[in-house]
């Protein structure tokens, strides 16, 4: 972008992908506005927000695309991913099958936009008694080079970390 070239101000598009009701919208809401609501409201299409983050000397304006979740009836439209520089794969730690959905979405994202940085976010970490994802599964994904962060959109735990990790990867600072 012309403006980006002339200043230290970078703009990056990031997307959130995942099964339905894993908490993508809540993560964005917590990240952008610091707000959390218990009420589940399904996303139709995509919601686009923006937030500036500072990494070292660089200020980055993130355009955060919160895509409608994948469910039995509708697949995620990968056209929304065009122009994305990175993405968060979001899974619900209390529903183990959402990790499998995340795996499949990663493959489709890669087919659309190629290999770009991503971070797997295991959300709802506050619901410890219902947690279904085993440490072995996490270790297996990590051994494949996946960056994984546990988060809770409710308490805010891990939310900033997830976006920061993604931005660091996008800037090439692993």
């Amino acid at each position, binding site marked *: 972008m012309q403006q980006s070239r002339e200043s230290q101000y970078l703009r990056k598009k990031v997307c959130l992908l995942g099964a339905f009701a894993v908490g993508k919208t809540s993560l964005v809401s917590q990240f952008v506005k610091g707000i959390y609501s218990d009420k589940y409201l399904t996303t139709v299409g*995509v919601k686009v927000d923006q937030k500036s983050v500072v990494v070292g000397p660089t200020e980055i304006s993130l355009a955060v695309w919160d895509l409608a979740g994948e469910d039995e009836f509708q697949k995620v439209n990968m056209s929304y991913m065009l122009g994305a520089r990175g993405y968060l794969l979001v899974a619900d730690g209390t529903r183990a099958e959402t990790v499998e959905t995340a795996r499949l979405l990663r493959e489709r994202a890669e087919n659309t936009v190629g290999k770009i940085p991503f971070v797997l976010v295991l959300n709802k970490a506050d619901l410890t008694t219902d947690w279904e994802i085993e440490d072995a599964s996490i270790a297996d994904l990590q051994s494949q080079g996946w960056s994984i962060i546990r988060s809770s959109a409710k308490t805010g735990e891990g939310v900033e970390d997830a976006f920061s990790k993604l931005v660091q990867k996008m800037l090439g600072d692993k």
Partner: protein
Amino acid sequence: MSEFPQPVIDYLRSLELEKRSPAWLLTDSAGDLRESGGDLAEYALDKIAIGENVAERAFFLDGIIPFDGGKSIVLECVQTDGAHPADIHLFKLGNDGFGIVFLDANESQTRQQAVQQRGNELNLSYRKLQKEIQKKEVLLHCIVHDLGGPLMGIRGGFELLEREALSDEGKVLLEIGLRQARRQEQLISEILQAFSAEIASLDAFQIDPALAPSVITAAKSAIELLKPAFDLAQVSIKLDLEGPPPLEQERWRVAGEESRLQRVFANLMENGLRYSPAGSTVTVKLVDEGPSVLATIEDQGPGVPAEVQPQLFQKLSQGKRGKGKVGLGLYFCRITVEHWGGEIGQKAGTSGGSCFWFRLPKAA
């Protein structure tokens, strides 16, 4: 595409203009605005001046304009703060620019939202319910397992007492206690087996011909096990074969596991015994069908009432028939046989009683 007559074009145009508040941007190949029009304010696009880069002024277009690839892209229901949800259509203007059309997606968004919301909520509720049921089954399993411990002690105590010199009345009372303890142990065993079979059914199953049980041996073992109970009830039990002689064991080997197959036979024979009048016969018949073996267990009792039949092999269904069982025996048979790739059912017997049957594939 066929030519549209002008009235159709006019109608479609008026429909879109009236209902969908179109707005449009035309850019050069770098994405700088050449001209624009329509309801730009509805999409927060009215502040972009001619010559400005649209992707820099409308952050949600960043990374998309300019775009490569096909002729056009449609991004449905894009929602941003302070703007109407919009279906965004991006298309190329030959080689020197792009067109971007915004159409109001409010109506479709509201409609889709309602349907998806309901669908997703139901999906989540169903899953939650399944999880609750699983938790309760595990709890039930633990409780039943714990009940079995002291019962073993009670039965052992009774069995030791049998060796003592008791009065005739004492012997009768002891026999009652012993019988009840054994019955309760049997009940607990059924519950635990049903539970473990359910868990096992989640595992992959492979037929190993070397370990495959003979259906004749399993049937005979079950008959031997239940013979005293049949004698006590004055009911006969017999085994008929239709196929190769018993010595040709290989031809009677079926998919499964020996002790569980014996348990399936025993459950079905016990079931037949339970409804058999004194003096009648329960007939166990094994038929070599070539690729499979059919086993039938037929009694001369009153038969299974029509209203009970649909639930016969469901969990906890048999208790309704008033014979003091919890209804896990037939359930265990079904999940076990199905797990081995077989099938199971019930039909009317030739003499008016019930005829339970199951079919298992041969091991080789």
